[in-house]
């Protein structure tokens, strides 16, 4: 890291997408790289089809596990419209990593409300750096759709200033033996995406 400023990442998506696992891996990687790290998450009701968010903050010394609204450096949206829900947390020069996967909320499923159109264009109009990728498809190429969260971590790693070997070391520690190869490949594909 170039300075002592605390960097804040917001992971957001829908329960069941592996958001908390991804924010755990990122936090571990930052700890292994020598940073102070704090992350927040909320369990409970949110797990059941609801919105899930997790803040990860790292730097020389981190106090709060929650970032001040308006200061998030990187938004990792695991679901396309979920990106829109948390824009007030972003700094003006934030980067956005966007999984283009769509998961309909109940009102959309019931035909009562439309899924918001033109999300990518909207984000590109307001933020300098928007990296859109279909993490589910890329994960499938690596061997399992379940590794979509690690694909997104690969994309995040391009923006976070630590060595790739640290990420790989932490990924190896985070999965059972039989899933390591798959996840390392998903991570690699996320870097390349």
């Amino acid at each position, binding site marked *: 890291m170039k300075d002592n400023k605390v960097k804040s990442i917001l992971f957001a998506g829908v329960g069941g997408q592996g958001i908390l696992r991804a924010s755990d891996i990122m936090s571990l990687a930052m700890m292994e790289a020598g940073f102070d790290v704090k992350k927040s998450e909320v369990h409970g*009701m949110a797990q059941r*089809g609801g919105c899930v968010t997790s803040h990860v903050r790292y730097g020389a010394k981190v*106090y709060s596990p929650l970032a001040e*609204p308006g200061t998030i450096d990187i938004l990792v949206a695991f679901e396309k419209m979920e990106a829109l829900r948390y824009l007030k947390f972003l700094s003006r020069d934030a980067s956005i990593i966007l999984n283009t996967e769509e998961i309909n*909320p109940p009102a959309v499923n019931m035909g009562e409300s439309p899924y*918001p159109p033109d999300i990518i264009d909207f984000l590109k109009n307001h933020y300098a750096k928007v990296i859109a990728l279909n993490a589910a498809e890329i994960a499938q190429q690596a061997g399992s759709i379940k590794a979509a969260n690690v694909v997104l971590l690969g994309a995040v790693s391009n923006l976070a200033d630590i060595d790739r070997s640290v990420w790989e070391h932490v990924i190896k520690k985070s999965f059972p033996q039989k899933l390591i190869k798959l996840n390392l490949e998903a991570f690699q594909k996320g870097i390349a995406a």
Partner: protein
Amino acid sequence: MKKVLLSGNEAIARGVYEAGVRFAAAYPGTPSTEIMEQFAKYDGVYAEWAPNEKVAVEVAIGAALGGARALAVMKHVGVNVAADPIFTVSYTGIEGALVIISADDPSMHSSQNEQDNRNYAKFAKIPMLEPADPQEAKEFVKLAFQISEQFDTPVFLRTTTRVSHSKSVVTLEEPLAPQDKTKLAHHSLKYVMVPINARMRRIEVEKREQALRHFVETFSENRMEINDPEVGIITAGMPYNYAKDVFPDYSYLKLGMVYPLPVRMIKHFAEKVKKIYVIEELDPYLEEQIRALGIKVTGKEIFPYTNEFDPGIIKNAITGSSQGAVSPYKDTLALRPPNLCPGCPHRGLFYALKKSKAYVHGDIGCYTLSYLKPLEGLHSCICMGASIGMAHGMSKALQEKGKGKVVGVIGDSTFLHSGITPLLNMAYNNSDALIIILDNSTTAMTGMQEHPGTGYTLMGKEAKKVNLPVLVSSLGIENIRVIDPNNLKETQVAIKDELASSGPSVIIAQRPCALFKRANLKPVPSLKIDPDKCEGCKVCLGLNCPPIAWKEGITREGSKRKGIAVIDETLCNGCGLCAQVCKYNAIA
């Protein structure tokens, strides 16, 4: 020493283990649950799920009276349930040590209220520590055991959701070897709280309070950080981190112990800084006590009473800015309210129950999620076990007007927590209400914890499994039916019959939670909707099952349909409810 990333709850479990403590009892409740789950994994410990928080505290008191160092863990509202023994063990003290953890939930992420349990410390005259992050959580729980032993007192450790569920870097230490000091020692004057003895102990409590007030003045975790003398912040717990994040240069008095308060230290701090802010979530608990010392502070006139804080809330309050961060996206986004899972056994029950048009008293568990449209399955929910007493009370008050129209629903774990006595009351006072026990074989809401009805303990040992129909019968209930809530017809008939019958009735709806792996070993194939047979009537959508969605615009010649329902096969677990409600045999 080794550094690891731990949540506050994991860190507490580690701290208890490092302190050499090997005895703990609890009832699960968000955000406290993981403390016990983690503690139970350490070698040589005894950890149990008690049926409720009152029992857990009494178990821990018993252990502590036998010389053990014991822990009791619960969420904030659990302390209400356990308050009776807590207020009097404050009088008796203990032989070993007793620490009670209260995990509070500002913002009610997963709770029915956001009561500030710091008030319990002052109310029950029990010292309370409040850590601000996982590292402190680990250290403070060790200190709590030391204070308990040194002052012969129970000690509270209070966390909030943000401390319990945030993760940060924690330095591990070598665990102390446990010392067995258990023995049978009779001290009846100290432990038999009949009035004559209680009056004696009451004086001892005040002596202990005096000693603690002296102790806190030099307690290592009450600390001053003098920086900019213009502004001083008095705070404790997680709000300290939020404030440091946005105002790193101000002076701080960070309190690790929130009861009793270090009066001299606070006065000393007030002399060193010009303007003082008291930053605390929920009640003006510190503020009122500090104002009572004659110190001028700014507190709840600028900081909210409700919900948890974040750095932005503190910054805006102090700088006087009413403008928070804004989103460039202005349209309304469809919400994602939490919903019953695909295959949830509660869905069929509430679908059938809605047709009865009864007033349904709910209880604490996943099934509260059925209150939302379109199921609208329950009409009240207050606290653990309340559904049964409330259904009985409403039925008695309404008499003929309520006949066949008042129902209480309660989960199996919640029933065993605090539903047995109100059901006994229904039999005793000849109620006319219908109680439905939603027996999904686990404590689902908090993440599949064992209870006396599951046949297993927290430690993974096989255990006596309560027989619900026999238990209910022995309370004096004569109308008892056991049904499968995924059989809609059977469920509807049972509800209709038991609402019509006179006297108290109990239906036990038995089907394991869809996420409960031990009970669901055989996968069931997912279902499909035949687009040729679907008439687009939307009846299946009324189940509010996550995999079922509406697809507009799929019309068919000779039919008035405007679209069809479709099932996301990756989400469907094949429970078959939708096939039972479909009038066109389109789902298989």
